[in-house]
């Protein structure tokens, strides 16, 4: 589903590459933690998969497509197959929960009847039934993240990318979010999650890829967070 082959990414103003000769393969339906300290290249990894950045050298394949050869007008089609969730939720505060989720479908031109059908379904899935007409600032952090996950998942992407989704949440709320991501993973969606949260990684016992300034230093199925801090 995602394959990086000898990928190096050097940002224009920096001398040290953010990723150096990274080769990773993530299969369909896998759940993968991407761990490592700040600046180890986790975000760069995710940005490459979304084609927000281009690899300086090496190849990135997502859903069978070589991103270096993907013309820019086909990037939106790629992103429709990759859902994204962030630490800061990125919701629209002037829209309700339903509108926030529907927005993702509106802007890719889905018909009205489909939107009114699938949005309540996905809100039910993420456990937000009864809060459809609230606005994000009336919700707790965990609930806001559930809205963001609903928005990322509503289009049934093949891949879900989560960049520190529990970074702003307390441990108990985080567990709820992880259960939700696990549930989404069980529907066959590949989940790649960058995180700092060692408790979560240790509990979930999923594949762990550890980056240490720019390099893959560990790739372990059913792994733990690994280093102490």
């Amino acid at each position, binding site marked *: 589903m995602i394959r990086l082959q000898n990928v190096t990414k050097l940002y224009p103003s920096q001398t040290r590459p953010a990723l150096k000769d990274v080769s990773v393969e993530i299969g369909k339906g896998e759940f993968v933690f991407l761990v490592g300290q700040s600046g180890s290249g986790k975000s760069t990894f995710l940005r490459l998969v979304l084609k927000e950045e281009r690899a300086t050298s090496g190849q990135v394949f997502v859903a069978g497509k070589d991103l270096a050869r993907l013309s820019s007008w086909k990037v939106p089609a790629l*992103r429709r197959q990759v*859902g994204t969730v962030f630490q800061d939720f*990125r919701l629209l505060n002037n829209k309700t929960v339903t509108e926030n989720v529907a*927005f993702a479908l*509106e*802007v890719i031109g889905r018909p009205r009847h489909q939107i009114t059908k699938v949005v309540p379904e996905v809100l039910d899935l993420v456990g937000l039934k009864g809060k459809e007409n609230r606005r994000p600032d009336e919700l707790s952090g965990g609930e806001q993240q559930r809205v963001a996950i609903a*928005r990322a998942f509503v289009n049934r992407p093949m891949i879900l990318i989560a960049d520190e989704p529990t970074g702003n949440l307390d441990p108990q709320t985080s567990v709820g979010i992880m259960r939700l991501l696990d549930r989404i993973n069980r529907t066959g969606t590949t989940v790649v999650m960058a995180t700092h949260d060692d408790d979560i990684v240790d509990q979930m016992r999923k594949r762990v890829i550890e980056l240490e300034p720019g390099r893959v230093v560990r790739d372990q199925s059913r792994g733990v967070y690994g280093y102490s801090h």
Partner: protein
Amino acid sequence: MRASFIVHEIGIGLRRNLIMTLAMVITTAVSLGFLGTAILFNQQVSVMKDFWYDKVEVSVFLCGANSEGGSCAGGEVTQDQREAIRADLDAMPQVERIYYESKRKAYSRFKEQFKNSAIVDNITPDQLPESFRVKLADPEQFPIIASAFIGRAGVEQVQDQKALLERFFKVLKWVQWFAFGLALLMVVVSVILIVNTIRVAAFSRRRETGIMKLVGASSFSIQLPFLLEGAIAGFLGAALATGSFVLMKAVLVDRILAPNFPITRFITWGDVWLSSGTVFVIGVALAAIASFLTLMKYLRV
């Protein structure tokens, strides 16, 4: 993307940026107003040119009893001289037609022209010169007539009305250029303002557009609301400008100028619609192009 959704988003955008939108519409209206006025002024000048050049004549003034200039040393023109001049004029191929204006006719025309002035009471028919009014097939050929009749016995002066008109139109030409220059400057100003407004709009909605990119909206659908906002501003500006043209034609031209200057012709409604149409096309196109170029830079996927 559904039309109702786009309309909704544009509404949000325009309202959020109400002051800037207003500024954008007003500057566009003023600059397009200038542009259209310059076009209308241009039309007016060419209407006047057609009208007056068609009427210009060469006047061959004959010596009167009191004439001193020209070849009037011999006193008032004689019957023979007058007939000889008429025959020679008739014979020239450049002359389309001539008619003779006697002192009496000159006097009645003079009375008509200055009917509200006391000067009429001080003038007698004797004091006005008799003349041949000559219509040329081609007004450019005045020099041929002039050289044939200046200095001839009985001719006081040969006057080309076209020369007088040309001086007048030369002045108008400068005014025209000035008006166009000003209009162009205003258009540049409004383009800069549109670019800035769209930039501010794109910035204030970077959260929305960021999410749109993330969930895979096409560049076109991300940019369309901004483009349409620009185009709507251009359209409203052009509509306001057209309103000002209609007002100009209905009030300034038809009510004030036309009754007071019956000696010339004025622009028609056709000219007004033509310049309105031009201004609409230019306004909407400029706004859309300006927004598009701005977005190319700020809203890339």
